[in-house]
């Protein structure tokens, strides 16, 4: 192998990432990280991911707790299957449905079209299958008797969740949140519509 020559790397540059506008270079375009439009988009995407994943995971975990509790066969099975529904709908249809639902003001609520809130709502709903299924796996791992021992003390559901279920579920919760996060920031169909 020939020794590396310094001139081999001499024309490498970070200009396309962080460079300021320079008329002599790339037709005066600044680096992508200096593009205000792109940066707003990036921040919106990331904050949507950060906002939606805890919300989806919380709903998923609550659903999972309910599903593993005392079973009412038909009802629990229905809820369990309903949790898969968002996966069945194409993203475009999902987005359109949300425009139809929240595009106009409902009572005291203002129209949400064009705000990040609508994006958040739609993305949370579309992520529920992941959240509910990881939540179920997590809750199943903790097992009935550990929660029943907590029930024996008379602690309320919220207290049991905070003191027993969540600390034990933290690993599963983080995995679920990551899954939702990746799903949300990679979503195109819903976001492009709303």
């Amino acid at each position, binding site marked *: 192998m020939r020794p590396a020559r310094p001139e081999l790397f001499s024309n490498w540059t970070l200009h396309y990432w962080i460079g300021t506008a320079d008329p002599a270079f790339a037709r005066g375009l600044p680096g992508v990280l200096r593009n205000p439009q792109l940066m707003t988009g990036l921040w919106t995407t990331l904050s949507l991911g950060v906002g939606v994943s805890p919300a989806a995971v919380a709903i998923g975990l609550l659903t999972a707790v309910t599903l593993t509790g005392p079973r009412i066969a038909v009802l629990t099975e229905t809820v369990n299957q309903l949790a898969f529904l968002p996966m069945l709908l194409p993203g475009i249809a999902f987005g359109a449905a949300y425009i139809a639902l929240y595009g106009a003001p409902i009572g005291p609520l203002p129209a949400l079209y064009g705000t990040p809130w609508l994006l958040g709502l739609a993305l949370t709903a579309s992520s529920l299958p992941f959240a509910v299924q990881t939540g179920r796996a997590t809750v199943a791992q903790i*097992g009935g008797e*550990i929660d029943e*021992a907590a029930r*024996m*003390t*008379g602690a309320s559901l919220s207290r049991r969740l905070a003191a027993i279920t969540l600390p034990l579920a933290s690993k599963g919760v983080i995995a679920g949140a990551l899954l939702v996060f990746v799903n949300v920031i990679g979503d195109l169909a819903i976001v492009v519509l709303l």
Partner: protein
Amino acid sequence: MIRLANMTKRFSGHAAVDDVSLTVPEGGFLVLLGPSGCGKSTMLRMLAGLDQPSSGRIEMGGRLVADGSALSLPPERRNAWLVFQSYALWPHMTVAGNVDWPLKVARHPDRAARVEEALAMMGIADLAGRTLSEISGGQQQRVALARMIAQRPKVMLFDEPLSNLDATLRVEMRHEIARLHKATGATAVYVTHDQIEAMTLATHVAVLNKGRVEQFAPPQALLDSPASAFVARFVGTPPANLIPIRAGAWFRRLPDPQLPQIDGHAMLRAEDLALKGPGPRALKAQLMGSIPMMGQRLLTLQVEGTRVTAIAPPAVPLTETMLVTLPDTASVIFDTEGYRLP
């Protein structure tokens, strides 16, 4: 005191616990004994308040705690605690944390002293700061018991608490539970399928079969006068032999005027069978196996296609075929349905 009146639990039409009525006095030790699926754990869960009876009443300490679908006090208002089969300790808390948390929820004013006392009573005061992954299964069982006694319940419930321990630890923990029961004076209800645990711990035993009480009696009475063939097969070390009789003939072919002229089973204890012969009441038996026990040997023999157990004193030589002599009488006879003849 615990009083159950017509307690029934149905799961989609099928009765897991079927019309159970019994009374245990204050400070008594009730063992619910039966094979898996007999409804004993369901009964315990109803006593704990985790499940609600479909119908029937539960009284604890003179107070009505459950009445069909009309009333079911939540667990924390029953002054009872359940020791779970899996211990159900909270793995993210320390040993002391596990004992402390129920007191914290109950806003007990003097938690530290209670925790310390309970841990000392179970001999695990030095483990207080450990996490559960750092202690052994036997020690975890002690934590589970300490978590209970720190709350000083009037009713202690145990769901097969020794089934996850090895044989030596099981004996040790059995004595610990007996000691706790004596020291606290609480009423205990203990679920097990192990008849030795039942015989050593209980003041009262309820033998359960398919959700119904086959017999409710002190341990000795179960051995002396079992109410049904099911009870006779289930209790005793070794369990009693049930010899088939047909029209008053042992093993269907050795007529005996002493026997009632019916079909059914006669109960014979291992010690009732004498290893001697020949004689008019002697039968040929094939030796299947032997276990040394208390200086003697416990033999498993095959007689006329029926497996029986007998006791061989050290002087008796073991041979492949042996002679077994039946006793003069059999005091306990069951009919074909398994009910005892009066």
